[in-house]
């Protein structure tokens, strides 16, 4: 399959018209770095390949049978939506995408917790920036506290809507 053929096939792909064998062909070509294919497509295949590596750990099946034999009534399955461990990682991804400062997965590897900032800092020195950050945060903090007591109840996992209408302001 020459580059021209691949190009055409890729167009078919984006149009949703390819068959499974055709897609497999495209994927193989993408992994081989074929020039007939677009960078976008190659990236997509790369991401898909990486995602496909996610697997359950080997103990999964054993745990399952243990649970079956233990009788489901016995183990009230430990309900854990608890610690979204990976949310640190996911949060970073989302934050990065949101801030638009994303220099994706360069050749290999996304170092967890590291963002590449393409935006210009307003301040050159960390000391200045720190002072500004401090002021801004204090300001936000004070406003937060205007919600007085209820702020204590804003626990990490809850969102509470509150409204404080002060000093005979705009009433409905």
């Amino acid at each position, binding site marked *: 399959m020459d580059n021209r053929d691949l190009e055409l096939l890729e167009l078919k792909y984006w149009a949703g018209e390819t068959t499974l064998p055709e897609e497999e062909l495209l994927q193989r070509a993408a992994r081989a770095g074929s020039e007939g294919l677009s960078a976008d497509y190659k990236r997509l295949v790369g991401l898909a390949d990486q995602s496909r590596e996610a697997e359950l750990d080997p103990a999964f099946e054993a745990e399952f049978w243990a649970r079956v034999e233990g009788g489901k009534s016995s183990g009230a399955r430990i309900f854990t939506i608890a610690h979204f461990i990976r*949310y640190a990682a996911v949060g970073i991804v989302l934050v990065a995408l949101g801030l*638009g400062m994303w220099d994706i997965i360069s050749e290999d590897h996304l170092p967890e917790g590291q963002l590449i900032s393409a935006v210009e800092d307003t301040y050159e020195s960390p000391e200045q920036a720190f002072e500004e950050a401090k002021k801004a945060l204090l300001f936000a903090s004070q406003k937060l506290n205007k919600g007085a007591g209820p702020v204590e109840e804003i626990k990490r996992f809850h969102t*509470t809507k509150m409204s404080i209408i002060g000093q005979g302001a705009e009433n409905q």
Partner: protein
Amino acid sequence: MKIRNNISLVILLLLAQGISAQDAIEKYFSAYANDPSFTSIVISSKMFELFAKMDTSDPENKKVKEAIGGLKGIRILSSETAQGGAPKNVQAAIAKIGKEFELLMSIDESNEKVRFYIREEGEKINELLMIVSGKEELFLMSLTGDIDLSKMSSLSKNMNIGGMNYLQNLDKNDKTK
């Protein structure tokens, strides 16, 4: 545990889903960052990394450092609106806040209104958006990273700094363009 693969999956699916909600806020900040009638302040993740390394003997600063521990960025947009109302395009941009952002708190007073929005992933808050709208000003601040609301609120409780003048000083001093 394959973190990297999880991230790939998320990226892939986000791409499929569309990242428009986050884009909107980002576009909004970017659009007005260079507008002379707005004061724009950006403190990036690189800066935050530097903060972590800074020496802080000052106990107050120590508290601040602790509170900002998880943060990755601050963006501020502030403007004086002489006509007593935000320009229409600003309203439109604010209208783009939605979906992922949930209203946390609102404070309405005679001279200003404050809204806090948060964006959560599971149990973590990864963005706090604060909008203050007064008769003559409009102020937006976005904090991103791992946000700890209780730390943030305790920050001002333990300090006696007159942060309330922040807005006024902001517009006067920092028209850094």
